[in-house]
């Protein structure tokens, strides 16, 4: 049987899969404590040249601390941080070849756009003409020609974000650090800026390290995502790996919507695993965790991988009966909650894509329905 690939994306950039590739940034067993709280715990991570990497996690998971340690604003309690093979220990922020775009943008309010972008260049002792030329180049890059004389308080949120980006890029950093770069923008602008940022990163070939709590942002922009949980990396991988093959329940539940059926393994035949759960007997084609018969396991199932049928389906797939509990029409798809039959009466989320403007078989509250999903749709998680 030919191996299928994850998701519907084919990536050519994957230096992390190449054992000979040399990482540009390496966090080696880095630990950072603030008083009794361990913000980053024995964390090891490599970033490769030209990679767009996202640190994703809820607030307090240590993602910002990790980035601030690379910038030099925090010092690791133990472990090393290497940049191009050089240990960064003892190098103060102003001597590090990284630049950061701050969450609040941190534009200097008493300086014009020109002076903001020129600030870093002037610290390098660049000649006046060279500074002016580089600032002009940066303004063109972020499409803000003609704004050089403005003050930050005369700019819109999106324009401020661009100035902050231009300022951080002006010194040609080896790694650009982005702290919640789109957090302060409204939804429409965020999507636009997202693609601009990706194009820019591809054009410049720079390594980007982004901190975000927004999974959509991380999924759309990053080559790889590190999902963080309480100072550790729960999983690192390409967006489709994180989404389709979460390493554990934390990652599965943090990234995207998911249904979890708890149960017990009743048989393992090659890659075909059978589980007894509250939703009935489930079949799964998954090579993953090497579980044995009798072990506790959970089946995780994304809402968009489930079909709703009005009649009992035939064939080898999984099925479960229930009734429509709730319907939320979201435009691009409809989120339906189905209450399964049986004592537990588990609620299952199903995302129905609205592929056509009209449908012959609309669903309504309290309808009796059948859920059906493929043997390859689910993910088996331990415990």
């Amino acid at each position, binding site marked *: 049987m030919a191996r299928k690939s994850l998701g519907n994306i084919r990536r050519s950039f994957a230096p992390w899969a190449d054992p000979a590739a040399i990482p540009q940034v390496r966090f080696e067993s880095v630990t950072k404590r603030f008083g009794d709280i361990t913000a980053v715990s024995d964390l090891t991570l490599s970033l490769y040249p030209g990679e767009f990497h996202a640190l994703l996690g809820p607030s307090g998971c240590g993602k910002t601390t990790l980035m601030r340690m690379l910038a030099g604003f925090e010092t690791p309690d133990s472990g090393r941080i290497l940049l191009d093979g050089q240990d960064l220990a003892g190098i103060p922020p*102003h001597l590090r070849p990284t630049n950061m775009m701050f969450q609040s943008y941190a534009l200097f309010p008493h300086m014009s756009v020109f002076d903001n972008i020129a600030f870093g260049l002037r610290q390098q002792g660049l000649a006046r003409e060279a500074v002016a030329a580089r600032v002009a180049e940066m303004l063109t890059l972020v499409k803000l020609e003609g704004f050089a004389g403005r003050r930050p308080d005369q700019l819109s949120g999106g324009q401020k974000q661009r100035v902050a980006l231009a300022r951080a890029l002006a010194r040609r950093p080896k790694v650009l650090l982005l702290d919640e770069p789109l957090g302060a923008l409204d939804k429409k602008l965020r999507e636009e800026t997202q693609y601009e940022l990706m194009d820019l990163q591809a054009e410049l070939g720079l390594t980007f390290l982004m901190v975000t709590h927004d999974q959509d942002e991380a999924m759309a922009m990053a080559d790889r995502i590190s999902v963080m949980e309480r100072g550790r990396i729960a999983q690192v991988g390409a967006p489709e790996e994180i989404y389709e093959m979460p390493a554990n329940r934390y990652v599965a539940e943090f990234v995207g919507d998911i249904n979890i059926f708890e149960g017990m393994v009743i048989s393992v035949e090659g890659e075909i695993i059978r589980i007894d759960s509250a939703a009935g007997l489930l079949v799964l084609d998954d090579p993953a965790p090497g579980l044995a018969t009798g072990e506790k396991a959970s089946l995780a199932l994304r809402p968009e991988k489930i079909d709703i049928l009005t009649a009992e389906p035939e064939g080898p797939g999984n099925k479960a009966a229930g009734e429509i509990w709730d319907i939320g029409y979201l435009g691009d798809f409809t989120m339906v909650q189905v209450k399964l039959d049986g004592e537990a009466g588990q609620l299952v989320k199903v995302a129905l894509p609205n592929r056509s403007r009209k449908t012959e078989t609309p669903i309504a509250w309290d309808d009796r329905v059948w859920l059906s999903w493929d043997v390859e749709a689910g993910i088996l998680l331990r415990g």
Partner: protein
Amino acid sequence: MNRLRAPHLLALVFGIAFLYLPILVLVLYSFNASRLVTVWGGFSTRWYAALLQNQALLDAAWLSLKVALVSASLATILGLLSALALGRFGRFAGRTLFAGMIAAPLVMPEVITGLALLLLFVGLDAERGFWTVTIAHVTLTACFATIVIQARLVMLDRSLEEAAQDLGATPLRVFFAITLPMIAPAILAGWLLAFTLSLDDLVLASFTSGPGSTTLPMRIYSSVRLGVTPEINAASTLLIALVATVVVLASLLIKRDALART
């Protein structure tokens, strides 16, 4: 804005009258043509003219102005340094003690401070005059400057300074290029506050001045003991005008700075 109701209005009028009626009377009588303080003899500015002839009063005013300028400048420098220590150096050992000691002159009775300084200067065998008064005023006003500057420093977005450092500025450059311009209004407000406090201080100056170094409040006070003259009313009116102007200026600075940040 809410309209004032009668009881509120009454309370307001009473409160303001309680605070400012005596001053108003003083100002009015400085324009009194009569030499008798209690009798209104018509409007005149003759006492202001007489003031210019009173060399002792002018000397005292000049000394007060010099003391206020120098002590306010010294207090502002000290205030800036201690505000930076409290606001930017993290939790160093003895920070709580330091913060408490900075604020102590706010609640310390001036008589005690004055007496203590007098004993110190006598013990050091220092000649009392301009510098002893100036130093005494710095001990009082530095804490006010510290509080005003620190309040602004706490509000200052730390990421501005971090951004500057991230862009290659040394800590010293960060201070002069970012921190100082951002807190400049507070520094000026602190200076103005220290200036007015020094200008109208009587107690500390009485303890720490020597012969031939009489400040304006001391001169006014000693004159009054010999009977209130309209001339003193005129001098006091000018002092009030100066202090009021400076205080209004300082509060406008702080308010404008706060508005600019919203």
